[in-house]
């Protein structure tokens, strides 16, 4: 009886083993994906997960070192806005514009973080193309946001590095070795992306669970970025047109009055066009800028001060100096700290009961873009009118009619947008004044080639088709 059963058992074991060995059965090797991972097919198979992928891409961008602080820090040091007071060795290369391909982690991070995010936006755009699983309307919205943000990243790359590889797919065989393309080609792609996105984006911000934030791109975001891009490539008409679209949207956007300059960088500020969540935590209420720039009772020493040149550029009684610059003294060292963001940690945010969010795009810049574009087309009156809007808010008098408008716009930008994601650095380059200005500010170290950051050595090491910017070893 027992033996009989054993025979049966053995027979079935024989059968099973024969099954393994003969068929090499694929199923026997099939495994489930890990519980904390979803195959991309699944991710782009439903509205919720597709939205989650977009949310993840925004997260990565806002969490990255570059888009939370380095853009501001590196560009402000490289230009003439900021000076480091402690840890100077770390910032010396930036301040002296002697950054190198191998050693400068700040410039390398900008490259690395941008392409990391671009990969994510690319994977969303590709994942949702011709994808019937997600309703067309939702799909359109998500893809348009992804294109806007991809354009935003490229705008940084092309502004800081010049020609860059234009990567629009996730296929490693196509992306790993692709060479740099002309900056103009990149701008063309940026403008095409933004225009396509603008057509598909709604005017209102995407709100989730009824909470409205300005944390995802809307149509005005695309317009604002278009005005920036067009201004950079010299298409002033389009720059003006897109800027005007945003400015005229007074239902959504208004400059805060001079009395409320302290509120400009709060969550849902009426002035904000795009806020990139908080880099630290969606609900923490403080920013990396605040943490980096604002000294606090636990600081050993002061970190940064605004440059003397910038401080001197403020006109007397400029409300912005009182609101956005903080004079401090510690251990006998004095500094003027950038004070646009005031919360330096969770506790200070809780105490102040003010939720600050990194603001990527805001209305004041759009006025200044339009002013610069008007000035470039010779339309002094409209340019001065836009400048007046900004100066009024700052409690400053109107400029005289015979002022050099280009200079006036540049100086106003310098004050209004100091330490905001490298606006000064890009403006000096855009206006072609960088050699003159920085040559004067840093006579012993400035070299013209430094206006383009070096391509990270690791990127070149792994892609022999990349050619380093001129001037770098």
């Amino acid at each position, binding site marked *: 009886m027992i033996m009989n059963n054993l025979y049966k058992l053995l027979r079935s074991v*024989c059968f099973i083993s024969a099954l393994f060995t003969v068929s090499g059965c694929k199923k026997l090797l099939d495994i489930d994906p890990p519980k904390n*991972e979803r*195959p*991309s097919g699944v991710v782009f198979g439903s509205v919720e997960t597709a939205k989650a992928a977009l*949310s993840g891409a925004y997260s*990565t961008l806002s969490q990255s070192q570059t888009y939370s602080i380095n853009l501001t820090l590196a560009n402000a040091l490289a230009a003439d806005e900021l000076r480091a007071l402690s840890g100077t060795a770390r910032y010396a290369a930036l301040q002296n514009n002697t950054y190198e391909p191998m050693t400068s982690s700040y410039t390398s991070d900008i490259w690395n973080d941008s392409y990391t995010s671009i990969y994510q936006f690319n994977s969303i755009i590709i994942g949702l193309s011709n994808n019937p699983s997600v309703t067309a309307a939702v799909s359109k919205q998500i893809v348009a946001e992804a294109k806007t943000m991809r354009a935003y990243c490229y705008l940084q790359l092309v502004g800081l590095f010049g020609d860059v590889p234009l990567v629009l797919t996730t296929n*490693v065989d196509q992306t790993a070795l692709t060479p740099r393309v002309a900056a103009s080609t990149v701008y063309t792609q940026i403008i095409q992306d933004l225009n396509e996105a603008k057509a598909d984006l709604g005017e209102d911000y995407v709100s989730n669970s009824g909470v409205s934030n300005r944390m995802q791109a809307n149509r005005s975001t695309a317009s604002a970025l278009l005005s920036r891009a067009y201004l950079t490539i010299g298409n002033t008409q389009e720059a003006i047109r897109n800027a005007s679209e945003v400015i005229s949207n007074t239902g959504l956007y208004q400059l805060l009055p001079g009395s409320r300059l302290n509120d400009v960088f709060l969550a849902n500020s009426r002035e904000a066009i795009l806020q990139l969540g908080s880099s630290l935590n969606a609900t923490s209420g403080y920013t990396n800028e605040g943490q980096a720039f604002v000294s606090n009772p636990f600081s050993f020493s002061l970190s940064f001060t605004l440059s003397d040149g910038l401080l001197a550029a403020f006109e007397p009684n400029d409300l912005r100096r009182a609101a956005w610059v903080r004079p401090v003294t510690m251990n006998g060292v004095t500094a003027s700290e950038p004070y646009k963001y005031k919360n330096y940690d969770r506790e200070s945010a809780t105490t102040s009961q003010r939720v600050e969010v990194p603001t990527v795009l805001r209305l004041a810049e759009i006025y200044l873009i339009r002013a610069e574009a008007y000035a470039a087309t010779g339309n002094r009156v409209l340019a001065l009118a836009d400048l007046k809007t900004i100066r009024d808010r700052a409690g400053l008098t109107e400029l005289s009619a015979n002022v050099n408008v280009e200079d006036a716009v540049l100086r106003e930008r310098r004050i209004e947008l100091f330490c905001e994601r490298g606006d000064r650095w890009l403006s000096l380059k855009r206006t072609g004044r960088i050699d003159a200005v920085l040559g004067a500010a840093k006579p012993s170290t400035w070299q013209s080639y430094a206006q383009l950051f070096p391509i990270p050595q690791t990127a070149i090491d*792994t892609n022999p088709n990349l050619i380093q910017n001129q001037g770098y070893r």
Partner: protein
Amino acid sequence: MYKKYLTWNFHVLTNHNDYTNNSAFCQVRRLPVLCLLALLFICNNSTSAQSLSEKRYTVSFSNSSFEQAVKQLENQSKIKFVYNETLISKRNRITRSFKNQTLPEILTVVLDEYNVSYEMIDNKYIILKSLESKPARENSAAETRPVNQNGFVQTGLVLDETGQPLPGVSIRLNNASNIALTDNKGRFQIGIPRDATLLLFTYVGYKNTERKAARNQELNLNLEPDPGRLDEVSVIGYGTSSRRTSTGSSNGINAVDLEKTPASNPAAALQGRVAGVYITQGNGLPGSPMRFTIRGTNSLAGRNNPLFIVDGVPFLAEAINAQAGNALDAANGSTSPLNSLNPSDIESISVLKDADATAIYGSRGANGVVLITTKKGKAGKTTVEGMVKQGFSEVAHFVNLLSTQQYLAIRRKAYENTGIDPVADDAYDLTQWDQNAQTDFQKTLIGRTAKMTDANVALSGGDERTNFRFSGTHLRQGNVFTKDQGYQRSSFNLNVGHKSLDQKFELAFSAIYSAEKNNVSVLDQTSAAYNLPPNYPLYNADGSLYWSGVPFGVPTNPLGQLNQVQDNNSSTLVSNMMLSYNILQGLTFKTSFGFSRSDMDQSRLYPMSSMDPGVSWNESRSIFANNNTTNYIIEPQLNYTRKISRGSLTTLLGGTWQSQNSKQPYYTLASGFPSDAFLEDLASAENVSTSSGSSQYKYLSVFGRVNYNWENKYILNLNFRRDGSSRFGLDSRYGNFGSAGAAWAFTEEKFAKGISFLSFGKLRASYGIIGSDQIGDYQYLDSYASVPYNYNGVAGLVPTRIANESYRWEQTKKMDIGLDLGLFKDKFSLSASYYRNVSGNQLVAYPLSIQAGFSSYQANLPAKVENKGWEFTLSSQNVKSTNFRWSSDFNFSVNKNKLLSFPDIEKTSYYTQYVVGRPLSSNYVFQYTGFDPLTGLPAVADLNGNGSINYGFADTGRGDRYYAGGTQPKFYGGLSNTLSYKNVTLDFLFQFVKQKGRTILSQSFYPPGYMYNGAAQPILEYVNAGLPGQPQVTSTFDDAYDAYSDYTGSDALLTDASFIRLKNVNLAYDFTGNWLKRAKMRKLRIQLQAQNLFTITNYLGFDPESQGVNLPPLRTIVAALQFTF
């Protein structure tokens, strides 16, 4: 002479339970001869507890012949009758009935009829002998019959070389599956089915001996010791082999070696004992991980774990909590999975090294295979074995640190040099703490004696068909930290084996269950013990813990850190069932089913009492993690053995299906508790975040082996394997592996017979290709993972990797040539191996230009890594007399590792890590040029002449660090000796390693002058060098700081880290005497064991094996009592 008619009185039992009172006798009727068939009526009243002679039978014979009667009795009694039929007359027939009678009673009657006497042996056999004294010659008819038709019982006596009886010698037959063992007196009986049967006597440590069975004759023999252990069975992949017949390279240790060490981790017992296997212990904390390097490092990616197999079931190489999700480590890193195995349950550990031995494991064998086999029950008396160990461990060597006076002088000098105000700089050691206080922190923090208790007991026994062994153990190991911490293990091990009556079907089952608890601290206190300023106050005047209130720059109180609670509870179950059936002569089908499961539950609590209350951001928090891994394996196998010509062919065909599931149900971080009392109550936490993870691994393969052995002279062994692994993309899952090995035992040749001193000589060689799939799971999967925070109210998903569907196995081509010699009757035996392994197709995180989205993806790199080396193993039986014996074992290994080639390395990020032509793990250092007389600071050479000191390699022109040798040992080995005099046995093992290291100063990140203490000698040497103003002493980030960090990265800190360590000592005394027998004890032994007793080294620091500032492997001394009933 035959009695034609038999009358016999027998007991008539009114009540068989009362038969002793019965005295009635009856006459038995004579029945007519009616039929030739015997009528059989079975009435077996016996219970199993009764011995055979007490069992009662009812049987009747009706005109039965001798054969019929014997058969009838055999059937009924289940006892084998053996006799020489030529000697027994067959003419008589018997007709009788017996009712409820014992076998002896029946036999006496029946056999008398045939004029035959009997003898019952061991309740198993009945041997029949003719009482007729006629010479065999007379029976010519019988002589012409084949003489081997009937069996008999062979009895005999086995003695050792000194004439002492050898118990436990196993005796097998060449033509039947009978097995017997010698008893305590060395006696044995075994049933022999026919003449010309050969008996094979085997006993560990003795030569296998063959003798011809002899009828009616005692077989007495002396076994010859086999110091070379030529025929000792060693476990290889899916089978066994021996030194005589193996074609491959494998070494190992067995239970005897494991008994000699007090180590709780079986891997520690391998240290120094096995050639080609380099094992280092990460630190001295209980449960600490052991790193295996078998014949060098093959893989650039860094995962070089061998494959561990316990009783046929693949075992985790990495800690349970490292299988999926986030790993929550303790101070010891993570508990080594091998620690869950109780060394005293292990029968043997075999390490397979070359292609011939490892190819049968195909894609997993490239880094070697470690086979662990647990003990099985043996036929014979039921045995209770036990061992109780009690002992302690302590740090063997402390480092001589700066005294308070020396330390403060350097500190003051630093502030003098930099001009910084110590008050403003929070230099509490100069401004606030007692300038004369001096605490020996090494003694305070890591100076405790850790107690250890280990008790185990095993019950085993069985007979020829069924055996079992069941054991239980409990181990408790303390820690040297000030707080009561430690490691506990309880485990059970069950082994059951069974064979069917016809010996064709076999079953073996083994199960190990082990539960572990480890609450060793999160932080190794050694670094605090080394670094704390000597006048640091641990306590306030009121006895409470001292806290500085300064968040950075002042060390936090290490005793506070001990208030953190770490609790790891894990359990492991490994079970395996093997079924085998002998289908035909030589053809056996086997299947093993394995299952293992490991669980780990962890929590770590950071109460406020463990943190400085003066630092505002400190808040209590806790972490909880849970992990489990389940593993199934099914391995059907077909074995076929037959003789072809003068050789024997053994073939194996098998398959494997393995499925491994790892899960991390949760990894939870919680903070914001109302008070320390709530740390384990998640509901009260303000912030809770949880992540989870899982991974799966499946594995499928077919494998085969063909072995052909021509009279133990020429041996050929071929292995092949085709594997599929889920770690690879759909199109590249399968790979083929194989090896060929050959051996030539030249001493079997005629020409060698004349060489008297050469008793055994064998040349062997093997070559093969083996794979490695030691990469993470899912690298081919294009997937998204969640991020732990929301963006704009939506939980995010991000891409996890650039998926690559096409990467393939890493491949190692292994070549091995070996020589095995036995000299002077195997008194000396020597094994030498030369190997060369080349690993190519390196599976690595292939560097990508970040523009592709990720900086790397899983891919094969064309780089080649070479490992070559020599291994020697020498055993010698130095002295061998009745009372005194001395034997030695020596092993020696050399390994050279080299990055052979790496096309386009300069285009990868590996360019900053490796140099072609150098070992994978190398010392790249600056060239120290002495103290600069101008600056007074240490200087290093600008080797690439670019005007500055750069970190890159001088070899590649990118920097100034030059190659100063590999970090792996140049050579290593061990020497063990066993001396026994009468009842006393002494074993000791020296381990030696020749290697280079960096002095302990390299562990001081900050230059002298900072608030860190350190080893006195190198610091004072540094401080006192150069200019009288000692500008090299600093307390801030300046030129002196940079100069110091260049100095510590220079060859000035290279040092000889070689060592000779008395790894193990074991002194045993075996009690003998009659009182043992009266106590029914078979063995009673007391032992004194020590581990890491002392170390001879020039290395200045805690320990040359672990180097660095972490708890060194401890010195352990235990007393053990071992007994067997």
